[in-house]
Each structure stands twice: as C-alpha cells, then as structure tokens.
C-alpha cells in the first residue's frame, strides 16, 4: 500500500469536492482496501462516504430509493425489499459473507472489480485491465470463472456482483452526482464491455459519485422473482453462473419475463432477447430453453469455461420453471 490520506466526507458536497480533487471513494472497503493492499490500485487520498446518510425510502411512484451508502445487509433485510423485490434480497444474501454484507455499501458493490486471479497478481501476471496493452494471461490460463458473453480479445473478466444482477433485472437506475450536476444511468448501461479498453469498466466520469439507486415500482414479474446462484462452494464463493428471474403469467401465457445473468460477462447481463422470446408464450421448459438459447447464441467459450453455457441454460430453465410452477 502506498501511503494515503483519509478523510471522512462530512456530507455529499464535501465528498464531491474531495472526489473532484482526486480522492478515491471508499465505501465499506471490502474490495478497495484489498485492492490497495495488493497494489492493484493506488490512491493518495481516500474519501470515506460510508457514513453519509444511508436511507431506503419509497419513491413517489411506488418504487424504492436507496442511498449509495446503505449497507448490503441493511438492504437485504429491509421489509420493502423482501416483500416487493425478493430477487434483490436473495441476490444480496447470496453475496460474500454476513460480515462483508455488513460492511459493503450499495455504491461500492456496483463499483467492485473483477476477481480474475491474473488481475490480482500485480507482480507476476499480465493484465490489460491493470496495464493497457500488457496482454492477458487469463486468455490461455485459468479462465473457468471468466466471461462467455461480451468478452474481447483484450479482456475476459467477469463482474463479480450478485446484487447488480438483480438490479439489472429490476431496471434499476443509478443516480450520479458530479461536477456537471446530477444524472441518471440505467444500471444495464452503467457497466461497459471491455472491447479495446478493458481498463474502463463503467460510464462513471472523473469527479462523479454514485449517490443512489432507484428501483421502479415492482411489476408483476418482479414481485414473483427469484435469484439462484451456482458456485463451487455452497456459500461464500463467487458465482460461476447466477440467474435472476421473474415471471408473470396470465391465462396460461407469459405476460412478462425478466431474466438477468451473472458470472457470464464483464457486466450483469440482462437477457433481453430471451425475455422478448418468452412474451405471450406458454411457460414450458422447452420455451424457456429456446429463449435462453437465443440469448446465448453469441456465447463464446474459452478453454476452461465452456460448461457455463449449458449451465446457464439449465439454471435459467430451472429458475423460470420453479417460478411458473409456484404461480400455477
């Protein structure tokens, strides 16, 4: 760790001022402190935003407004989340451990970085994300956890968040504040695919701060939603594949389908093609399979992660099947 200064943001304006002058934003620290200690990242100043007001409140239209500094555990246990957005509660609870969920903030969770082992090995491995143009040792190395969708020849890393997969499914919107004022970005547009610039992971501009997340009012498929995480260990492990799914069915036909995948790409993957394919069809395993296959047409396996494509198919079919079964 290079030496750095630490300041606790007095309020949002103070935080923004410090971010504007180059301070790195510290939330719960569960990812950033680790990255600093491993010398994956350097900072000269930290501004701690984890003590800023963290409220969860209903919006005027019946949605939910979540401040960026709300802890993951708090959000998962919140009655409105558990009742109206069960997929989000389950996704949050699938992440990390109870201790980490008590620390991690919503904003920090969104900005967490990949767990690629080559990204972490500063001394011994090449990584285009750390050092653009250096090369990618994961490409022909251990890539079991890596992306099958949206990867580039520069980077095959995945985004590790569970929460973001649920947020992607929920049409969540991220509120940002920066030198040019405030703006909002749909979560599905917030993270970007690696393309030729894997060092760029989000559309966050210099000096900008995530201030909160807004969830639209729950649709029928949201109130009837689930999250299933598939991993190497039964708990406390990152996803190989995760699926956020929601279904609304009327008169034997799907009226609304929502699907997002985790563990497959550099961003939480909203399966819009699959969703479209499911509208107005009968909720059968064959229909689910056909729909997710359509989504995964562009999937490209690497040497060690080809299993993810079939696993994603099977898990999506199972999650949607369970939702359809429970509704029926």
């Amino acid at each position, binding site marked *: *760790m*290079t030496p750095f200064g630490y300041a606790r943001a007095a309020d949002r304006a103070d935080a923004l001022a410090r971010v504007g002058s180059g301070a790195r934003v510290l939330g719960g620290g569960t990812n950033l402190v680790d990255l600093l200690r491993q010398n994956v990242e350097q900072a000269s100043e930290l501004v701690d935003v984890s003590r800023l007001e963290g409220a969860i409140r209903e919006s005027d239209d019946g949605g939910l407004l979540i401040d960026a500094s709300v802890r993951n555990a708090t959000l998962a246990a919140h009655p409105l989340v558990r009742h109206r957005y069960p997929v989000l509660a389950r996704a949050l609870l699938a992440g990390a451990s109870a201790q980490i969920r008590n620390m991690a903030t919503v904003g920090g969770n969104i900005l967490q970085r990949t*767990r690629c082992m080559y990204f972490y090995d500063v001394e*011994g491995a090449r990584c285009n994300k750390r050092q653009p143009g250096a090369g990618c040792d994961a490409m022909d190395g251990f890539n079991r956890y890596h992306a099958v969708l949206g990867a580039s020849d520069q980077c095959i890393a995945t985004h590790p968040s569970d929460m973001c997969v649920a947020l992607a499914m929920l049409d969540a919107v991220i509120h940002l504040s920066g030198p040019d004022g405030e703006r909002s970005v749909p979560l599905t547009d917030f993270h970007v695919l690696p393309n030729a610039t894997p060092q760029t992971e989000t559309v966050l501009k210099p000096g900008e701060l995530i201030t909160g997340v807004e969830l639209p009012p729950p649709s029928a498929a949201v109130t009837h939603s689930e999250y299933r995480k598939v991993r190497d*260990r039964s708990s406390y492990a990152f996803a190989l594949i995760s699926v956020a799914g929601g279904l609304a069915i009327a008169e034997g036909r799907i009226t609304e389908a929502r699907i997002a995948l985790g563990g497959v790409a550099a961003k939480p993957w909203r399966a819009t093609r699959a969703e479209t394919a499911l509208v107005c069809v009968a909720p059968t395993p064959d229909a689910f399979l056909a729909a997710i296959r359509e989504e995964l047409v562009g999937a490209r396996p690497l040497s060690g992660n080809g299993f993810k494509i079939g696993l994603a198919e099977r898990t999506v079919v199972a999650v949607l099947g369970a939702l359809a079964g429970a509704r029926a």
Partner: protein
Amino acid sequence: MTKLQNAIIGGVRAVLGHVPASWLPGGTPDPLIDKRVSLGGQQSRIDGPDKVRGAARFAAEVPMENLLYAAFVHSTIARGRIADLDVSAAEAAPGVALVMTYRNAPKIGVPPPIGITNLKAAGNHTLPIMQDPEIRWNGQVVAVVLAETREQAEHGAALVRVRYDAAPARTRFEEGKASAYTPESMLVERNRLDKGDASRKLAEAAFTIDAVYTTPWENHNPIEPHAATLVWREGKLIVHDATQMVHGTAGSLANIFGLKAGDVHVSSPYVGGGFGAKGLWDHQILGAAAAKLAGRPVRVTLSRASMHRLVGGRTQTEQRVALAADADGKLKALLHHGYGVKPLHSVCDEGFSLTGRSLYASESFDVVQHYVDLDLLANSFMRGPGETPGTFAIECAMDELADALGMDPIELRRCNAASRDPVSGAPHSQNAMMEAYDLGAARIGWDRRMAKPGTRREGEWLIGMGCATGTFPFTRMPGTSVRITIDAAGGAHVASAAHEMGMGTATVQRQHAADRLGLPLDRVTVIIGDSSLPFASFAGGSSQTASLAAAISAASGKLATELMRLAGNDTPLAGLKSSEVEFADGGLRSVEDPARHESFASILRRSGRGELSVVGESGAPLEILKYSMHSTSANFCELRVSEITGEIRVDRLVGAFDCGRILNAKTATSQFKGGMIMGLGMALTEETLLDERTGRIMSTSLADYHVPVHLDVPDIDVLWTDIPDPRTPLGARGIGEIGTTGVAAAIANAVFNATGKRVRDLPLTLDKLI
C-alpha cells in the same frame, strides 16, 4: 542411500521375524489398555478456556521491543538469474530499516533435510537461501524488507525493482513425466513391488478394472499464517515460531547459522493449524538472517500469497490402478502405478503407492511410483501423505470393481480383507477393518442404498451413497522424551518439546500421566512446545501421541525405581523390588498387597527431596518392522447431486475407525471429523491452481482456494471399534491423519451411485457432472 536403506530395513525385518514378540516394544501389553480412569472419557481440552478468550498466544503475537516487520519480494520467474536489482527506492521509503538481498545476506548453510536419520533436521528442501542470484522456483524470495511498521515494510517491498534473465524452466507435469525418476525406496519401503505375476493374472482374470485417477496440487491453508518473531541475544537466536517441529527447527537453524545446538531456542506453545505445513521453510531462515543483519528483532507474518509461494503443498498425482478378480470377487492382482511431483531439491515423499500394499489380500502385486522433477517449490507432507491420494485411487477402483462384479462394495472388501500383511506375510498387530465397516454401515443405514446408480431422486436431486476404506500406518518416533517431575506435594509435571496444533496433545497426555501415575487429573500438569524441554520428534505421521506415551511409560518405570531407592527401608514398601510395585493413589503400592502403600509426598519428605525428576524416552520402534501395524477406517457418505447444476451437497458422513484404543472420546472425535472435513474439501473443491506456463501458483488466496465452509459440512458421525492394539502404548494407534484418507473416494463413489457418472479426477466440481 536408498538402496542401502532398503537393505538395512530388509535385514532388520528378517531378523525380527525370528525374534520373540515379548522381546520387542509392546511385547507385554500396556496395563493401561484396561486400567483406565481418566483415559477414554470425554475430557474437554485444557487449553480451551485460553483459546476461547483469545488469550492463547501465537507466534506473531509475542510482544517485543524495538521490533521490525518483514515483507518479502518474490521472484516472478521459475528459473534463471537476477539480472538487475534496484532496492534504492525501497531503502529510501519511510520507515524502511533494511533491505536484504543475496548481495548483503549473511552467509548461511542449506537446510538439513527432514528425515528419519536426523530427527533434529526439518528442511523441506536443500537449496541455498538468498546466497546467490539464481532463481529456482517461481515465488522464491529475492528481497526481504524490514521496516518499523508492517505497512511500511509492505510498501517498501512493492518498491523493489527486479529484472531477470529467464532460463528455460521445467514446469509442465505431462512433459516432465517423460523424464520421471524412480526412487529405490518410498519412506521405509522398497518402491518397486512385484509379487506373484500380476501381469499374467490381469490378462487372465474374469473381471478387471483398469483406470487412471488424478488428484490436483493441494495446500494445507491453516488459518494461522506462518509466522515467527525472532531475536538474537548475545549470539543466540530466539525464535517464537508456529511449528510442528520445535527441535527440528532449532536444530536446523543452528546448523544453517553455524551455531551450537543449544544456541537456538524455539518456542511454539500454540500452532494455529499445521497439517504438515508448519515446518521449516525459508521465512524463519530469512527472518533470522535479516534480524542478524539489522541487529533488531524481526516479526515475519506471511501473507496468504507468500504462504503459497514459500510453503509447499501436496503434489498432484496421476495414478493408474488395475484390479483383477475372479467371479467371486477374490482379488487376483493389484496394480498401482503413478506419478507425483518431487523436485530433486525436495525432501518429502508422497507415497501414494504404499496404500494398496496392506489393505487387501490380493494374490499378486505390481506397484511402483515415479517422480517428476520440476522447477517448482518443494512439495511437502500434507495430512495423510501418501494414503490420502492413494486411497482415492484404490478405493474408487474397488468401487468400480464391485460395480463390474455386481457385488455390494462392502462385500467385495469383506471377501478380500487381509488376515495378515498380504505382501510381507507379517501378522497384524491388530486389525478389525470389517468390524469398522459393520459399525459404519449400520449407522448410515447402508441397506437403504440402491445398487443401481441413478435410481434415487428427490426433485432435482439425485441421491447416492458410497463407502471407501481409509488407512494409515502406525508409527512411533524414537528419541521422543519426557521429563516427569514429582513435586513436594506429590503432584506430577510432565514436560516435553511436543506440539499442540489442535490435537489436544497436553490434554490427552495429562490423562495418560494421571492414569500411569495413579493420580487424579488435577494433580498433573503438562507443558509442551519449547526446545528447552526434553527432545520430542515432530508432530507428524500420526506418531506424536504414541511416542509421548512410550516416553511417559518409560519415565514412569524410572520413576518407580527412583522412588523405591529414595523410599529406603523405612517404608511400607520395604523389601519390594520396583517390579513388585505399582502406581496408585498418588504413590506406590505393592501389587501383591495393596495395603502396603506410600505416597509420593511422603517418600520425598522422608528423603529430604523437594522434588524428583526423571526422563524417559521412546525407544526404537522395532515393533513396526515385525508386525503389520495399520489403522483402517470405513467411510460412508450420503449425498445429493443436482441434476440441473451438478452441484453436490453432502448430507451425511460416517467414519468408523479401527485405530486401537481411543484415549479421549471428545478430542478424538474432533480429530477424526477434522480429517474427514479435509477429505471433504479434497473431494469437492480443493485445488491449487499452478499455471504451468510460468510455474506460478495463481490460487493464492482463500477466496480462490476453496476450503469447506460451514454450509458444506454436514452432521458427521464418528464411531470406533475401540479394540486395543496389544503392541502399542495404551493400546492406541495414531488418529491424526487417517480421518482424511478414504473420504474423497467415499464421496466420489456416492456420486457414482447417485448419478451413474464416474469422475476420476478431483475435485468433483460441478462442471464434471453436467
């Protein structure tokens, strides 16, 4: 050397075959086999209160004035030379006191290798340490940075710039197999075993199985990182270490630094998990060298990544097992060939091929293993070395054979259970493998198992059951000593440089000493973990309890003699020989006439002695050369496999153990369960990811190397036959390692029973099942 070793051991075995059993250690069964007061019960561990308070002090926690913190810089190539080394930025960084590299490191010797010829040696490799610019493995330490704080040391380490001239490195297992070497001996056995024309029997048998099984590199990953707090005082080196070989570490450091044996003091009262990993590695040596150079005390705490770069793990193995049987299941041939990695600079054998030599009464054997020499960090012993990967291959093959025969897997074992050693013909000291199977089968409800795979289902889950044998040899280490001191009040104090890393060492030997000396538990103390105490061998090979027990037993004999001498004639015991008295009620009494008794306190008082000390020693373990002494176990597993995701959930584990007498039901249960859970991890998730392109370990964190979490661990039932081994102290055999053996096979066999899929490559990750 090893040919000579084979000849010597072969010769001793031949002689001992003709020596009457009564002349050998254990010739007369230990009276404490049956006479148990404290032994055998549910005794809570005596260091429990300190541990639950956080008051047990570990190596990195010893306070020290003027301390410097060490951080390591590791090489990033596997083979070559340091071309440029720039430490100027590091030296100039705030708080940095010293940067040590091969340029300024003290001249020191190479580590003396651990082995049976020198019990005060603990080196896991025999390479020079920071004496030259050569790079010999990816992760070798190239610089040590000492600073006033840990943060400053780590920052300094990040500022060291190294450029290498890389040389071609041998880092690929498959390529290395072509030039593999074949050692003459494997631990104390001949490596090559060819008996009874196995190849002909394999060709002619009615039923054969011939398959290749692989196990990956694995790391011990104790939760306590390797750590040492070191200080030089007046030319002597004091090391507060986390080690399972106190005297080995002291002796080795003395040797390396050219000191007298007594000039290195190693203290290690608590070790936060070892499993074979907590031996002598480069960090203690570099810490001592840096402390010497800096003239200040040094604290080394390895980061998780440094642990993976400096502390060797269990080698990967590739094992071919071929079994031949007649239609009744009787084994005609057992072939076990294979490869592991053991670099030439490495010391530890992974003798997986020893496993199948003692378990089953095959008519013929064809066994040999080969080592691949690679430019890697030395491999090391990890819980149940040899038998842990060995049982995976042998016991999966037995399951495959049972399936091919259409036989119940337990019945296949029953019809091949050996009544004596199938290779040497030596009698078992005690063996009740099938009793263990019967106990375990009853407990798990084996009769619920469906013989046909893939036929039990609950929703998406396919349910299966499996079993497998575990085994580990008995060993007792010579030279392990204890001092027993009787104080004026008649209490006993047992001291030995033995080790506590969770086994309950002091707890059990306190029970033992109490029963041996006829004292209540609260009159006995046990102190261990310090090289100033009488010599004890390493805590390894599941030998520590037996070795200490033999030493306490020997010391108690001396104690009786000394006490009788002090007692003189003015005692109720007058006229008796020491063989005619026994310990009872805090003193000695006549065996013939229990009314004739005098307490320790009385004898000491009358003789004007404040205390009396004797030292006893565990003698040469000749019994293991006359008898076939192996513990066995029967492992059972019931699990579910998701048909959708391939995820495995182990619902139950049952381990039934035949390990002689159990000395403390509570701590023994924990030992067995702990071993089984390590076997569970081996089966399901554990795999060290070695990138063969660079020879670099990538899975250097506990987030990447998956050990079981609470939710992975089911309720585990542990049972034991409790049949005493008449040839061992207390009738007990070691229990530390056998728990790990056979578990992975039982789980893999249960997966087959659940799904019909035979996975021969560990770990059983879900991608292998969908």
